């Protein structure tokens, strides 16, 4: 069973990327991804890290009329920071991996089952 681990960070967490502790920040993420890969649960090539929310552009169309907004979809405390796909037998195992993510403390991780293969 495949699950998406969808990572949300606070603005404080995003700003760590450009701070003195940037080395620690990136180190924690690469150690986490390596851990998933070493355990054989990571679905390679199925996820990505995202740049800061301020770099986003949002498009919406209402009755053919397009509006373009500078910034992410919603202005919330936690913002989408990236996602990975893992393959584990149950929600409980997916949750065990989610707990270990660097952003869980302070930010959030959403565990969402991936749609099954239509074949």
């Amino acid at each position: 069973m495949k699950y998406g681990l969808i990572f949300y960070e606070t603005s404080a967490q995003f700003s760590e990327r450009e701070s003195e502790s940037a080395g620690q920040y990136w180190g924690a993420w690469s150690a986490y991804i390596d851990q998933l890969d070493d355990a054989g649960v990571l679905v390679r090539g199925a996820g990505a890290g995202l740049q800061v929310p301020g770099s986003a552009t949002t498009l919406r169309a209402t009755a053919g009329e397009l509006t373009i907004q500078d910034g992410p979809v919603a202005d919330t405390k936690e913002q989408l920071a990236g996602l990975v796909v893992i393959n584990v037998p149950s929600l409980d195992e997916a949750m065990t991996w989610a707990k270990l993510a660097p952003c869980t403390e302070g930010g959030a991780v959403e565990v969402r089952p991936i749609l099954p293969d239509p074949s």
Partner: protein
Amino acid sequence: MDASERVGEVFRESYGKVLSHLLARGFDLLRSEDAVSAAFASALTDWNDATPPNPEAWLCRVALHRVIDIERRERRITPLESLAEAADPTETEDPTMFPDERLRLFFLCTHPAIAPEIQTPLMLQLVLGMSAESMSELFLMPAATLGQRLVRAKRKIRDAQILPELPNPEEFQQRLPSVLQAIYGLYSRDWGTTEPTEAMDLARSLVIASEGDPEAMGLFALLLFCESRRAVVRDVYVPLSQQDPSDWDPEMIKSAEQLLQAAAAHKSPGRFQLEAAIQSAHVQRAFTGLPSYVQIARLYEALIAVAPTTSNRLGHVAATLEANGPEAAHALLTKTQLTEPYLPYEAVCAHVALRLNDLAAARNHAEAARALSKDTKTAAYWAEMIQTIQNP
């Protein structure tokens, strides 16, 4: 008894067992529910001549065939499921041998990924087969809303692959209180009507599955104490204080006392241990002739500190009546707030008023208690009480 009555009786006792039998074999929750309903529907026609010797085994077999049919129709059978097909239970196999499967069903409903407010209705539905309509009053929610939320919870279990497994030790501890509460609720439901063997089996398995958790032992001890006296009130309602201790089952009392002692050794008291300790204090009457109401009142104080329910407060009032007299009990009663009519409240008020020699108040409360009685045994008890008050 016709087939529909017999099937109805088996449904009450066996719905959750049959459902957990399928889930334990890796079948999907929503399909399993459909298959169990279909098995009960077949029973309505097939049991016209005679009930099979082991109705649960019959239902498990029919439901298992049905769920495999459904799986086949809707998609390929996966290896796990064809394995289940090979392990087809025979008429003689007794599914009641696996109470662990039902425990797993209880724990499934307490999964933290399921909204807390729907966990209890979900347990009642999956374990007891209760419909959204029948639970709507209990949970103060329109049947349609409750039904939708139950379906949403079940879809989540299926789509997110929440498995019916016993959780790891840390999670187990967190989820245990809801499971204890559900088993106690199941016992209470059956107490007045049928043999509560299902709840007893589950409480026993939980002691084993939890490796002797003190509260699990407390619950099992509590149920054993209640069971030891159930025969006494089978046909006629007799208040505890007026029962003859020699009618109580000494073997069950002995087991209950042993469990309670083993639980107390953990020095981690909780709601069910305290409730069992109150029962134990009542049972002391069997040996000394007198229960220690002072001790019982103190235990109720400790119980109210962890579980401040109206029912526990009323128990405290009743013990205080015996330990410290009617004035002290009356003072406590004036502090008890009720939101709706409640028989135990009227009962305690009637007894306190009687001891205060306030016959008019005693009669009013006894009348109210009779009106609130849900069965003829209890109503008969209060009718007699009213007679006694009128003609002392």
